[in-house]
């Protein structure tokens, strides 16, 4: 069978939320009855919004239903609000909503759960409206909601008669088959007011297809994996149970379902934490009340002399009737039978616990399967309670392991002429220091014994050699070997020819060992040959990821140093010195008695001569200006004008001078 089709989607949603409410409490997936932890978590998960409502009708229904199943007390105000919310919908949903049947369905269910006082007239009205929907609709979902709503109205004590039941049923069936999603588990059962007889056989058949886990937990799995509707075994099983429940509502006959299978289902739901569906199931199928055998603790310490404690309760944690619990078999690892002697557990009335001292059982540390048998003391209970025959529980027995005769050393050959044997105390970190070369061997030996004196072989016995460069080598020390040897000769390549200091670390641990330890033993100076060229390189070690973060070192630019200059005074002194020849020149001229008698006396030549010298003066002044402020381009510009002017006046002045001098010569 497959998971719920279209009509079951609401149910699925409900179940999912129920899982949400309760799947949180126990840490491990052990089968335990419902406890207060479930309840408080449910209350927490369904924390109402500040205005007191849970949102839409569907969520509200899921919340109140969960609280009802788990027996969580909510304050009156909240109930009142939810009731009011539902009643409003019942009275007014003739109008807006796109799916009146859905709203009515949820509203009726809320008021049913909360036992709200709703006017009977309203129910009649609702019933009429739902019937109208049934007649008109051709959608499977609408039908589901309408029929479901009617069913709920009926539960409220109203008399609802569906005039055209047969045709409705056929309509549903036809619809379902036409889109290929006929499901026995939900829609047929939910609609079974009209066709109980048809469905009853199917349900019993349905239980034949149940699958089982190894530990006797049963679940339904889908046969057709319809890709869009695949919900997994949890929801499928939940759907089946919902279907059966609804069927039980309306069918008068008793379902003949084997108690063993009921118990298996109960375990499945408890295992995943789904008491909602489980309760529905067992309330309706009144054949058996399943009794759940559970261990409060699955770990027993031989050191603290724990007692084996067993609780037997119903699914919801209430006390079981008087019964006897026997431990019939103890199986060790690999299903090895340790003991088959039947032991009866004593009963502690105060705590409602069956207990047994484990010391007399003479079991050593390890992992065991305990097989229990429950037998009811009063025969008439056997028709009421399902005990499920044998229950198997896996437990761990732990104890302190004695570690002694630990020693290590370096030996030269197999004969074992041990050069240096050092005793180690494995109770604390040791700091031995050894040195070896590749021709030698490292030996390590120690003895582990259980509290009962047997040799103990832990799961984890690792000797780790850690090189300075963080390359690690791990050796599994076989539990059976008395002496463990590392022959370095065969390992040179594996060690990547890395000589140097290796830190030794020994870790011993096991699930049954209370004093698991990790000890530093000391270090080993290993001298290995030089690596040949083609030797494998050691693997790259992870760089510290933090190194690439963090600020970098600041960089500031180093500027070119300015050129060295002489002191100012020196420059000025030399400037003065360079002026001395000029002064000497002037003095020399004075001494010579310079005159300017040759200067032309005629106005025109004297004007040209003055202009010529003024021009030379201007050019020299331009050079001074060039030094002080002008740039080359301006200077050249002015110089070109001055030059032309100077050539012109210079030519006139000098030609006059030469003509006068040639005249004088000829004269």
């Amino acid at each position: 069978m497959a998971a719920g089709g279209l009509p079951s989607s609401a149910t699925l949603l409900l179940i999912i939320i129920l899982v949400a409410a309760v799947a949180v409490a126990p840490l491990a997936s052990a089968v335990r009855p419902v406890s207060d932890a479930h309840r408080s978590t449910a209350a927490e998960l369904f924390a109402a919004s500040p205005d007191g409502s849970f949102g839409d009708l569907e969520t509200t229904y899921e919340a109140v239903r969960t609280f009802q199943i788990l027996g969580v007390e909510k304050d009156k105000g909240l109930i009142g609000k939810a009731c009011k919310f539902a009643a409003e919908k019942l009275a007014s949903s003739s109008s807006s909503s796109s799916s009146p049947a859905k709203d009515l369905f949820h509203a009726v269910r809320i008021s049913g759960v909360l036992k709200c006082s709703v006017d009977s007239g309203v129910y009649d009205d609702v019933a009429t409206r739902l019937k109208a929907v049934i007649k008109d609709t051709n959608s499977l979902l609408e039908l589901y909601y309408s029929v479901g709503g009617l069913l709920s109205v009926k539960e409220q004590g109203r008399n609802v008669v569906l005039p055209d039941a047969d045709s409705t049923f056929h309509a549903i069936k036809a619809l379902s088959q036409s889109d290929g999603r006929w499901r026995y588990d939900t829609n047929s059962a939910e609609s079974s007011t009209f066709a109980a007889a048809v469905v009853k056989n199917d349900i019993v058949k349905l239980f034949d297809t149940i699958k089982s886990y190894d530990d006797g937990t049963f679940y339904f799995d889908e046969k057709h994996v319809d890709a869009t509707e695949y919900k997994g075994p949890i929801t499928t099983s939940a759907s089946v149970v919902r279907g059966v429940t609804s069927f039980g509502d309306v069918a008068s006959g008793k379902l003949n379902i084997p108690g063993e299978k009921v118990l298996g289902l109960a375990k499945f739901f408890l295992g995943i934490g789904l008491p909602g569906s489980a309760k529905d199931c067992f309330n309706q199928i009144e054949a058996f009340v399943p009794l759940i055998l559970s261990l409060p603790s699955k770990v027993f310490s031989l050191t603290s002399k724990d007692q084996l404690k067993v609780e037997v309760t119903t699914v919801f944690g209430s006390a079981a009737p008087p019964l006897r619990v026997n431990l019939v078999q103890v199986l060790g690892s690999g299903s090895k039978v340790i003991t088959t002697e039947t032991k009866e557990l004593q009963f502690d009335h105060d705590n409602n616990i069956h207990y047994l001292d484990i010391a007399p059982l003479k079991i050593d540390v390890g992992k065991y399967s305990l097989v229990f048998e429950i037998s009811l003391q009063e025969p008439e209970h056997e028709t009421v309670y399902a005990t499920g025959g044998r229950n198997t529980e896996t437990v761990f027995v732990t104890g302190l392991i004695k570690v002694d005769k630990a020693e290590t050393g370096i030996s030269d050959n197999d004969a074992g002429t041990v050069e240096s044997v050092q005793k180690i105390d494995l109770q604390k970190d040791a700091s031995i220091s050894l040195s070896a070369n590749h021709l030698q061997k490292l030996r390590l030996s120690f003895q582990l014994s259980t509290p009962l004196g047997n040799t103990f072989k832990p799961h984890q016995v690792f000797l780790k050699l850690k090189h300075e460069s963080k390359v690690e080598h791990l050796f599994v020390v076989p539990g059976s070997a008395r002496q463990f040897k590392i022959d370095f000769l065969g390992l040179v390549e594996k060690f990547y020819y890395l000589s140097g200091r290796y830190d030794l670390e020994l870790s011993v641990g096991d699930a049954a060992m209370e004093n698991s330890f990790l000890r530093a033993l000391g270090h080993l100076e290993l001298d290995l040959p030089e690596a040949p060229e083609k030797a494998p390189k050691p693997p790259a070690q992870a760089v510290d990821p933090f190194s690439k973060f963090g600020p970098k070192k600041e960089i500031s630019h180093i500027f070119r140093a300015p050129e060295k200059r002489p002191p100012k005074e020196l420059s000025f002194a030399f400037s003065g010195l360079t002026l001395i020849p000029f002064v000497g020149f002037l003095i020399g001229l004075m001494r010579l008695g310079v005159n300017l008698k040759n200067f032309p006396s005629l106005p025109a030549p004297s004007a040209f001569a003055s202009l010529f010298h003024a021009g030379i003066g201007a050019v020299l002044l331009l050079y001074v200006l060039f030094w002080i402020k002008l740039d080359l381009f301006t200077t050249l510009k002015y110089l070109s004008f001055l030059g032309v002017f100077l050539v012109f006046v210079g030519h006139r002045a000098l030609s006059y001078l030469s003509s006068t001098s040639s005249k004088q010569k000829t004269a």
Partner: protein
Amino acid sequence: MAAPRHHLAVALVLLLVLAVVVSSSSAAASAADEGGPRGRRVLVLVDDLAVRSSHSAFFASLQGRGFDLDFRLADDPKLSLHRYGQYLYDGLVLFAPSTPRFGGSVDQNAVLEFIDAGHDMILAADSSASDLIRGIATECGVDFDEDPEAMVIDHINYAASDAEGDHTLIAGDDLIQSDVILGSKKIEAPVLFRGIGHAVNPSNSLVLKVLSTSPSAYSANPKSKLSSPPSLTGSAISLVSVMQARNNARVLISGSLDLFSNRFLKSGVQKAGSKIRHEKAGNEQFVTETSKWVFHERGHLKAVNVKHNKVGDTNEPGMYRINDDLEYSVEIYEWSGTSWKPYVANDVQVQFYMMSPYVLKTLSTDKKGVFSTSFKVPDVYGVFQFKVEYQRLGYTGLSLSKQIPVRPYRHNEYERFITSAYPYYAASFSTMGAFFIFSFVYLYHK
């Protein structure tokens, strides 16, 4: 009669499409108004819808922070990450460890492209992890133990529990030291973990171990005897790792799906050998804080208003001269989940870069988001860049660069009156003076 009706129907459909487009674009606009770095649409892929319930507290915390979760089965044939070239989701929660292949158009490459497009992902595996999930993890730099039966075992640092005794329930407390990834409040209680271990790829520098094991842990099949050394041992095992890609896409990879479950979130924890019993495991705080980080509610930086100018000037020049004094400033803000808050740090650095950094200087902050500094342009000309490369653990990387040319002195910008050159000047000018006087003497002396 039929034809007009047909037209009417077409118009109606068009209107509807239009309405959808308008409403979706307005939704996008409202997301933009908030200004957060990431959108709020998250696809949750599960391999059994029951996960939605068994992990409801985690999902509720996401929804409570404003995320819009879309729960789909991993093999849903209608599954698609994008439509018409647009991604439909901003984040992915992959809680489907056992799924052998995704439905619809989604496959390993589609998931990786989704991350390459800058989206975030939370991936949880467990001992049933499929090759698909392992493959995605490998691409993210995380290698799960190849032995399908292996689980992380620690015989010393396990969580004491009455219900199980094989020490596979690890109480992990070796957390990364990072306020930005794990929140500023210290996680006091150990984090419960049951699942498979992984190693981070040493060549991948983007992956960080967030939750590591103690040195006594190893990864092996608890049910069978060990024959060969386990491939993963000691603190090399990572339980939860994060990866921040270069495009700031964030990925969290956990070897345990139970880590996120209501069971672990609500249960108490007592580490073996320790007297302290914590009422609540650190898981709730851990998954809330890490999911905040993954979905960019924390540690996302943005830089705006990058400015530089000459000292004493306010305009940004098109070019600097060597030896100019300049000021550089940038504003950096961090997204706090609801608003952009000024980022405060003392390690933001700017580089003045041409082929290699010429100047690298730490910026000082005014605690209101503005980071600034001033320095002298080096006496080397060329095309420089202002570079801010900010990579900090857990924060998104900032990588800013702005190009700016630097020119040498112009010819008239050099020093004009150099004292040591005065002798030369004096010599030339005295020669010029002498020449002027000599010209008179030479021409007119008699």
